[in-house]
């Protein structure tokens, strides 16, 4: 498989597994959202969401969990150094004693993941059910997902069972983000282009920027 491995340690159960999002399988049932709120470390709060993209025109829906960036923008912009990534590649919620509830991370995340819990004065986000996954269990959302639009399976298994292929490189214009979580895309796609400029021809752009 071609995708980029980003975990730095071996031995953790999390490094043998991949987390895969396939919007084409999503049925919008919100089982993942409900199950997330049952996770023991943040019971009562769901940290993920399902987007109903444009219900007037389509039943298409997309479940969104934290993508767990290789270089997490949320952590890079945090003035309190409150957001940590584990050695096995999972980006955690803000540490309660450090978080100053400034919402920099909420604004900076390219995927719109972190949520500011103002009543707790703390940023909370999906931590891939670290309490479960670090102990060899599967995350709540991907375990219950009835369409397996969210799947947590051994890294070498997904290519054998699915038609789509996993991609974890996202291009936001000139900004390249690689993530621990994979998006399933049709064959022939190597990276997901998010910005129109990825498709434009601007030979003089870099030059004009530096001038």
């Amino acid at each position, binding site marked *: 498989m071609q995708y980029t491995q980003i975990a730095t340690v071996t031995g953790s159960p999390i490094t043998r597994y991949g987390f895969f999002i396939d919007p*084409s*399988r*999503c*049925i*919008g*049932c*919100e*089982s993942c*959202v*409900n*199950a997330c*709120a*049952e996770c*023991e470390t943040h*019971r*009562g709060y769901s940290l993920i969401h399902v987007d109903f993209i444009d*219900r*007037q*025109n*389509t*039943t*298409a*829906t997309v479940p969104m969990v934290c993508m767990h960036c290789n270089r997490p923008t949320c952590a890079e912009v945090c003035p309190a150094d409150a957001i940590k990534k584990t050695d096995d590649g999972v980006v955690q919620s803000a540490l309660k004693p450090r978080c100053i509830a400034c919402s920099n991370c909420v604004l900076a995340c390219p995927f719109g993941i972190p949520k500011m819990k103002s009543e707790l004065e703390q940023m909370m986000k999906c931590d891939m059910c670290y309490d479960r996954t670090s102990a060899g269990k*599967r995350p*709540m959302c991907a*375990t*219950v*997902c*009835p*369409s*397996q639009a969210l799947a947590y399976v051994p890294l070498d298994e997904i290519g054998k*069972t*699915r*038609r789509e292929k996993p991609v974890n490189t996202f291009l936001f214009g000139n900004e390249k983000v690689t993530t621990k979580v994979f998006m399933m895309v049709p064959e022939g796609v190597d990276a997901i282009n998010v910005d129109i400029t990825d498709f434009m021809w601007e030979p003089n752009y870099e030059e004009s920027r530096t001038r």
Partner: protein
Amino acid sequence: MARPPIDESLLIERFGPHPKYEPPGGWQSEAQNPAQSLVKTHCCFCGQQCGIQLKVRDNQVIGFEPWEEFPFNRGMLCPKGVKRYMQSTHPDRLLSPLTRDERDDSGFRTANWDEALAFSAGRLREIQTRYGKDAVAVYGGASLTTEKSYLLGKFARVALGTRHIDYNGRLCMVSAGTAYKLVFGVDRSPNPWSDIPLADVMIIAGSNTAECSPITTDYVWRFKDRGGKLIVVDPRMTPITRNADLYLPVRPGTDLALFLAMMHVIVRDGLENRAFIKEHTVGFDAVAESAKAWDPLRAGRITGVPPDAIEKAAQWFATAPRGFALHARGLEHHSKGVENVLSLINLCVATGNIGREGAGCVMITGQGNGQGGREHGQKCDQLPGQRSINDPEARKHVARVWGIEPDEIPQAGYPAVEIIEAIHRGEIKGLLSICFNPLVSLPDANFTREALEKLEFFGVIDFFMSETAHYADVILAGSLHEEEEGVSCNVEGRVIHIEQAVTPPGDARLDSQIICDLARHLGRGQYFNFREPREIFDELREASRGGHADYYGITYEKIDRQMGVFWPCPSEEHPGTPRLFEGARTFHPDGKAHFQVTEYRESGDPISEQYPIYLTTGRVISQYLSGTQTRRIGALVDQYPEPRVEIHPRLATEHGIADNDWVTVTTRRSAITVQAMVVRTIRPDTVFIPYHWAGSRSANLLTHRTVDPRSHIPEYKVSACNIRRSQQLRAHP
């Protein structure tokens, strides 16, 4: 004349539905006070019967944990499954028997068990003495365990001696059951779900699979992963339609024309499996002849499906090495529901697609124990083991197990809709109901309300006060799914074990105990000496022995060992039967599949100038049936709080309706006003309203009582209506 004892809004204030949002002790309580045990059992909602583990502490269910080893769902759950534990320890829970009392502020007063049981038995006997045994009827439900279903059938026939017992499964899959019996001689989905991913071409007809049987979605997507071609037949583009290779947007009530035209193409082009037809079937020639008149052009005009799409569907299906058909209420809820299903099965049989790995047809049963609940005697015309009540041999066998004479078993009674009609015309005067909320779930709710008002005695066994129970004289506080051991049978025919996780709270009792106690008060206790559900199951095994649905070789321990046992299972050594019709041998005495000729006809509530739009009803993902349980679970209520009407923008524009506008939908029965959901995913000649709610926004105020003449299922899927923007109510975004 029985009306609710006090104003219904006050009853709702006292008894709910109130949405519950948090587990016992609040969200954080488990951190300090963790669960003491994990109980492996199943979800109480829907025929998928997913495996789940309930967390239990101090005799309360406080949460859940996925059960990944259970093979059917492998840990997967829909949102109803995730939140199902919230029904436990609910503030609306009925904790003791109640009797109607107009002087009480809540309309009902707490009674002790002896008083409530003696009163109920006394009233039932009085009515029977005065008007005859058949003047009382029993309503059961397909969410009950198989033990309770069996017991209820025996109770009606042995304790009450009435022929009128039927159940809310009559509103579910009976059209399919009737059709499968006609073609194959047995009523069960013939293939296990593990066959779904192995098919090459699949037709999903009249099934909102993603919302109504969510776990099946993963099986369908795995079929797609293997390169299978998916054909979806539905008047709405439901979520599974997005991945269809061919979508046939059929006009409500015209599926039969579509399938006849597909048969036409198969016969015209010689695509039928001649060798298979010759060896394993009877009656093909008549079916081929009847399809002659149905060329795709004619069917196209009726169905609104392009003729070339009909041609393509027929060719794909007939030339596939392994063809598979999945179907649900969208085919069955019609006055020609049996014919709709028959015409689809005919396609499978004509192409040799039965009884093979990855090839066949299955009905997606909707209710929790939809399969098991209909096999052992709460259906008006059946005795345990899926035996016919008219069959002298069956009567003899069951009478011996029950310890009575065959002649003491009453003959077949009325199906569910006809029972309410008999109440309305004064023929039936007393009703005992468990696990059924007919005011929400039967068609033409105003008629149902009038009927309930005419009852001289109405007894209800339930754990929450349903809207129908507002009319009760007595409510006997029964047990939730997690409070009583038993079995149920899932959508595939797999018999599974429901564990008792907790005992009933307060003064509430096990449903089976209540039924046995009531039998004792009726003076028939000698036939109901069951101390626990296991003893009922053991008698059921004997009663079903030798029948089609043979449970004789099934035990609770064997179910646990094998993660379910597929019936028939005639002996303890027998492993069960995951796939029926291996070698194309059906349950008919000649072992063959019997083709059935079908004839197209109009629906029972045709469109007209005054009512030019089709109304179709159905379900949403977060609610289950009449909502007695799911309208009490906060997270599920929030997900889809109120019924809305889906309207295509073209139709909406014609009527000056915008998204979120309040719209009055009127049929020949009644009118309701709900908010519009303007979407491009429904045919412009059709509107859709989900049915889970009571009161003035109940979709079943609009539907009609026409039933299929053979299955007696109501025609929920087609009514004629008109729509207009409400002048009284303004849209709020």
